[in-house]
């Protein structure tokens, strides 16, 4: 049982998504703090820069799959090379508005993914994820 609130990162090119999720998470005190990134590359850069500073590394990442510059899939291709440097378990959830079964199947086959969440991300879905991981 981890008796603290998680550090959550949102990787999504849609700033309205940032706003909505932040508002839900803050509104219900679900996170210690929230990091937001507009594309995978920026998030990856942040993780690389902070790989030795555990307290800056998010516990949970909500990763959009459809983004410019570097999309969710490409992020997941690059991430394993960072994973060994990070001394902390990072739970990545792919968040997508795609109802394409191929996307869901593809996500299921990627080790680094802890789950697939269909957008919109609601309070219930957020709580479910955080509770399942044993935070609080």
């Amino acid at each position, binding site marked *: 049982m981890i008796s603290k609130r998680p550090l959550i990162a949102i990787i999504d090119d*849609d700033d*309205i*998504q940032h*706003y*909505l999720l932040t*508002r839900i998470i803050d509104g219900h005190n679900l996170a210690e703090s929230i990091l937001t990134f507009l*594309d995978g590359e920026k998030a990856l850069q942040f993780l690389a820069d902070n790989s030795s500073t555990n307290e800056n590394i998010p516990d949970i990442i909500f990763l959009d799959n*459809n983004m*410019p*510059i*570097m*999309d969710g899939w*490409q992020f997941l291709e690059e991430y394993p090379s960072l994973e060994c440097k990070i001394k902390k378990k990072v739970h990545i959830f792919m968040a997508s*508005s*795609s*109802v*394409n079964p191929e996307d869901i199947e593809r996500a299921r086959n990627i080790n680094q993914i802890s789950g697939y969440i269909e*957008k*919109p991300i*609601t309070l219930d879905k957020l709580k479910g994820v955080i509770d399942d991981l044993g935070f609080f």
Partner: protein
Amino acid sequence: MSHTIDYKELCSIFPSGYFCSQPDGTIIDVNQKFLELISYTREEVVYKKKFTDLLSKGGEIYFETVYSSILKLSGKVEEINFDFIKKNGTKIPVLINSVEVKDIEGHHVLTYTSVFNISQRKRYEQELLIAKRKAKNLSDDLMQANKVLISNSELIIKQKLQLELNNHLEHKNRQLSSFAHIASHNLRAPVSNLISLNDFYNESSDLEDKAMLFTKIEIVIGHLNETLNELIDSVKIQEDINITHEPTLFKTVFNKTLEILEVQLLDSKALVTSNFSEAPKIEYPKLYLESIMLNLLSNSIRYRSLDRIPKIHFYTEINSNEITLIATDNGLGINLKKHGHRLFGLGNTFHRHPDSKGVGLYMIKTQIDVLGGCIAVESEVDKGTTFKIILKKVSDDK
């Protein structure tokens, strides 16, 4: 020198058959040739057989109805065909000439008949008939084969049409599935945002908060509207297959593009050159060509490298009968290994640029595809990008 002709002798050895009969048909005299023809002896025939005894039943009827009446009417009969029945029962086809001999009062007393063996001729006839039948069969076969060929070629044409239809359907299917994909990505996201924002709006009692939420709702509605318009435009293009192709000069369209982008070109200080001499013109929807050139040129300006003077060159080529438009620049380039598969997708951008919307390449690819062309790209990061667009085949009728 004179020679007395022995008529009896002549009659006897004459090379065609001869017999003499009474009006009731009783044969009273024959020559040797006749006996040979029917393989009887003189004793078996003379005063023993009537003309009709040598005929089949059918022959007898013909004798009564045709031969006798002609003879009675005109005193002679020429070239009547009978089959005589020989002693052994076999038939021999003959041609007969007869003439009536009358006494002083005009009574019919005798008939002289000459008989020509026409077995040989009959055989020829038979052979001719067989040959004719064979020829007919052959021509029937040929006609049949021709029919099969025609129906086969019809089948092939039908299959070809079917194939084309299939391809068309497949293409449509792909379009639909990509449309559904785009709709799922680009429409569902803003709609679900709208719903969430609306929920917050309804829950909130703070006026300032409500106002802030409302501006966000407006922004999302704006995005949604833009996306919808883009989708509608692309659907329009896909239905535009029958759009008119007009003779269009590359130079004219390019100059117009330069005018439209004048401000951006001045800002970027780009060096823009062109050479359309290899293929100066094309039969193509002018609107599409304008859109293609505008998108390519504005991309080249937008994604220029700030480290060097932007150089952009547009030119045409004819490669194996196909008119190709090539646009090359020395700009930022794209990592094709990373982004190649999404390059022409809607809403995909690869550079952090405020004007990047990820529409241009999607739109021109749709336009090029619809007209049966194709677009290819070569690029190296920080070296530049080259777009090659096969627009269409050079028509053969020129």
